[in-house]
């Protein structure tokens, strides 16, 4: 693949509203899914002849199914609060990346077909027909939204652009124009069990290799069990944890925590994926089918608990939707949250003193934490509001002596997206680099002010995206770490195993 040439945005001395460059990101969008990928998901292989009528019918269906969608389309008053809140808008300067403008691509067609004024006087109310140009604009600009929902935090009406993007992507899939990156991955989950296409023998080989590494490092037999029937805990983690750096160090961290807790746990080769790309494409049916694999694995392996590894949107699906998608989970031990996040699990053990940490093991690092969008704005951890912000930070602080937050308007519920999301593909590298600008600026500030050396995260996509884009901004690619990598390095392992915690 030839190198893509584009300008890397420069750090701004202070945040400013970007000078608009209309049409600068106009294009054909990401690669389109191949017919076999589309068909595996139940969508037409390629753009169908009657795409217009099918798209409008589908929009009508979605408006009936999701009342929120109609409310979001009706309630915008064009106040402008969202305009400069999107990382892609800030990084690209394209006015169609203003959340309101992105919504309007959809809203104009909605008005034309589903409002009286739009049917009678389209020009007066900004209503437009769904022409081929508009459809192409949808494909392009609804794939310049990572569905991070930062804009919705600032909208006085709480309009969620992500839901509009999801609806647009579902309509595009329904007429046969899906995105290759997401749909190829979902097809792999159905066929092999995970996004990577990692078959069981390869997974077993990888886990054995990691057990050897841990034995070399610690001298202790720390296991990574696979398909163990009757284990207490089923770990559902993104398959990137079995493959990529720095993800795999996080996986080693979970294994050490389970070991120290004396827990009986297992990974499933059937449900070897926490990620659920059905959410990114807005397809309830595909989201349910992917989630169903977790339920089946839990039943087949007769586990009592489900714990999710570090994966942002997986935790949104896990925390917010799992029970309604594929519940009830009354066959699990109801004394524990269903599901539980690995950070909740580890934090609890730290509180109980089961997991002891030697902070000095991380003295060569000065840390900050990147809140992942889906965890921050769509979920919770623990039993207190804001637990999803506090628990990962408490774990990090328990693992190191030097921790510094980035600017308040770039973290927690106002966190900036990493720039990846369901767009983590090489054909969108320009968008990914530009979209990372606000996070890179905030990182630069703590690097300059506090000598921060590393940024930890709890999302596989964030970790891969940052590994890729950090060098564009002058940082080392290994500046990004897994939170459980810090745990892994600081945990004090004892050979006398405690009773299960």
């Amino acid at each position: 693949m030839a190198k893509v040439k584009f300008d890397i945005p420069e750090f701004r001395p202070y945040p400013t509203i970007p000078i608009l460059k209309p049409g600068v990101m106009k294009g054909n969008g990401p690669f389109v899914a191949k017919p076999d990928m589309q068909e595996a998901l139940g969508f037409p292989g390629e753009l169908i002849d009657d795409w217009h009528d099918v798209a409008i019918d589908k929009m009508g269906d979605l408006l009936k199914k999701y009342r929120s969608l109609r409310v979001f389309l009706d309630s915008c008053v064009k106040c402008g609060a969202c305009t400069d809140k999107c990382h892609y808008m800030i990084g690209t300067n394209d006015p169609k990346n203003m959340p309101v403008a992105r919504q309007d691509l959809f809203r104009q067609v909605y008005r034309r077909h589903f409002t009286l004024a739009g049917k009678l006087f389209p020009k007066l109310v900004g209503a437009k027909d769904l022409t081929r140009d508009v459809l192409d604009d949808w494909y392009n600009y609804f794939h310049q939204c990572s569905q991070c929902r930062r804009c919705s935090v600032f909208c006085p009406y709480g309009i969620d652009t992500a839901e509009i993007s999801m609806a647009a992507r579902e309509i595009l899939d329904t007429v046969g124009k899906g995105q290759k990156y997401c749909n190829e991955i979902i097809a792999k989950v159905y066929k092999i069990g995970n996004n990577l296409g990692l078959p069981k023998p390869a997974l077993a080989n990888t886990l054995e290799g990691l057990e050897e590494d841990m034995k070399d490092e610690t001298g202790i037999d720390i296991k990574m069990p696979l398909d163990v029937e009757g284990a207490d805990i089923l770990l559902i983690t993104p398959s990137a944890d079995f493959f990529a750096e720095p993800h795999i160090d996080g996986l080693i961290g979970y294994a050490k925590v389970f070991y120290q807790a004396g827990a009986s746990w297992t990974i499933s080769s059937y449900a070897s994926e926490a990620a659920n790309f059905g959410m990114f494409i807005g397809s309830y049916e595909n989201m349910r089918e992917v989630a169903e694999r977790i339920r089946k694995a839990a039943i087949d392996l007769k586990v009592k608990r489900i714990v999710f590894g570090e994966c942002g949107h997986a935790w949104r699906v896990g925390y917010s939707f799992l029970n309604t998608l594929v519940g009830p989970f009354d066959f699990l031990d109801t004394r524990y949250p269903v599901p539980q996040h690995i950070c909740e699990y580890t934090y609890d053990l730290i509180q109980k003193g089961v997991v002891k940490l030697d902070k000095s093991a991380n003295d060569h690092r000065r840390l900050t934490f990147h809140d992942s969008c889906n965890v921050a704005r769509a979920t919770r951890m623990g039993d207190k509001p804001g637990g999803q912000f506090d628990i990962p930070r408490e774990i990090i602080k328990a693992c190191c002596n030097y921790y510094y937050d980035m600017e308040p308007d770039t973290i927690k519920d106002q966190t900036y997206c990493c720039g990846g999301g369901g767009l983590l593909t090489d054909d969108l590298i320009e968008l990914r680099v530009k979209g990372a600008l606000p996070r890179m600026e905030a990182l630069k500030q703590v690097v300059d002010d506090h000598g921060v050396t590393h940024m930890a995260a709890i999302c596989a996509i964030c970790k891969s995206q940052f590994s890729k884009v950090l060098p564009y901004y002058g940082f080392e690619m290994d500046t990004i770490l897994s939170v459980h990598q810090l745990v892994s390095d600081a945990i004090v392992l004892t050979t006398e195993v405690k009773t299960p915690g």
Partner: protein
Amino acid sequence: MASIDVNGKSVEVDEEGYLVDLTKWTKEAAEILSAQDELVLTDNHWEVITFLREYYEEYQIAPAVRVLTKAIGKKLGPEKGNSKYLYELFPYGPAKQACRFAGLPKPTGCV
């Protein structure tokens, strides 16, 4: 469909430059693919490519980066058994770029 010319024969590649039919891979194909990225393959590159192909043969997937670094460390010495070294060899990432030269499919997912 795009293609590359290998010794006068046309070999199909997908829009991201990966071979469509993995059995069509040859050493010459690897050299042409690497030339597209302005890279000249050295013996050390070939160690990686050969390992990737052997692993794929056995497991139908590229190895985890950790598995690859360990194997390369054993072959080329411990100072080269790390992902930094692999990125020096394959600046666009050992997983993706090296897989492309080796004729393997592109790793998908959150990687």
